[in-house]
């Protein structure tokens, strides 16, 4: 998807929309505890913001904003954060994914520690969903070849 001509209307509108979509996805994730939202919803909106860069501009522009290596690292980082929180609860002496024991390391009582444990795992879910949605889209749209836009690493 390397094009010579940009469409004026789409590229101008997406200049306004893309930063707003990214901030809105973080808002939806951060308010997941008191209003509808959470990890999955925020991750999908963030992936949609990057897909809008591919649609309105070039594939190379999207790759410059989000490198291929960073995408692969982000895929694994989210699952690692989720399982890491569970293991932290296991190391502190309680069951797997039992967040009330986190009150030993965080400055909160056991009821509020469950609140913070949920926020940590929702962060992991959002990072993974965002990276995987973008990765599946880039693979399907270029049939795996990425048209020479992959970095020249051997």
């Amino acid at each position: 998807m390397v094009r010579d001509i940009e469409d004026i209307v789409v590229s101008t509108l997406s200049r306004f929309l893309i930063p707003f979509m990214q901030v809105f996805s973080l808002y939806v994730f951060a308010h997941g505890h008191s209003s509808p939202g959470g990890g999955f919803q925020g991750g999908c909106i963030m992936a949609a913001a990057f897909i809008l860069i591919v649609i309105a501009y070039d594939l190379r522009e999207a790759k410059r904003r989000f490198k291929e290596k960073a995408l692969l690292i982000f895929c694994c980082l989210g699952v690692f954060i989720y399982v890491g929180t569970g293991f932290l609860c296991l190391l502190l002496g309680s069951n797997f994914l039992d967040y009330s024991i986190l009150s030993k390391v965080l400055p909160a009582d056991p009821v509020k520690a469950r609140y913070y444990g949920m926020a940590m795992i929702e962060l992991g879910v959002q990072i993974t969903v965002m990276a995987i949605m973008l990765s599946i889209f880039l693979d399907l749209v270029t049939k795996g070849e990425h048209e020479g836009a992959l970095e020249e690493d051997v």
Partner: protein
Amino acid sequence: MFEYILSKYNYWMYIVIILIGFYAMMAKGNFMKKLIGMGIFQWAIIFYFMSIGAKRGASIHIVGGHGAAHTAVQAAEIINPLPSVLMLTAIVVAVATTGITLSIIILIFKRYGTLDEDEITMPK
């Protein structure tokens, strides 16, 4: 008789959508149309499960209200949150299977040059 049909009308609607998706999966020859039929089938099942959680005269499942003091929550005034929770997982599974099916369709097209079911399984 009419009361029986009217009080369960959500089930009739979802049965119609399920049969439409099922017909598209079986009778259409193009693989992309079969994939769309599978998508219709999956979403009809998700809607059916979400409709189980409704309760007459209840409000949404965000409790707590404003301020620090909150009264006790009655179970008959809040709609059932469990079907929504289970269907969040089902939606992500639907997205995953759609992505993998699309990549398999790309491989079929690279190998055979066509996406028609009859030309692939019974070549001339």
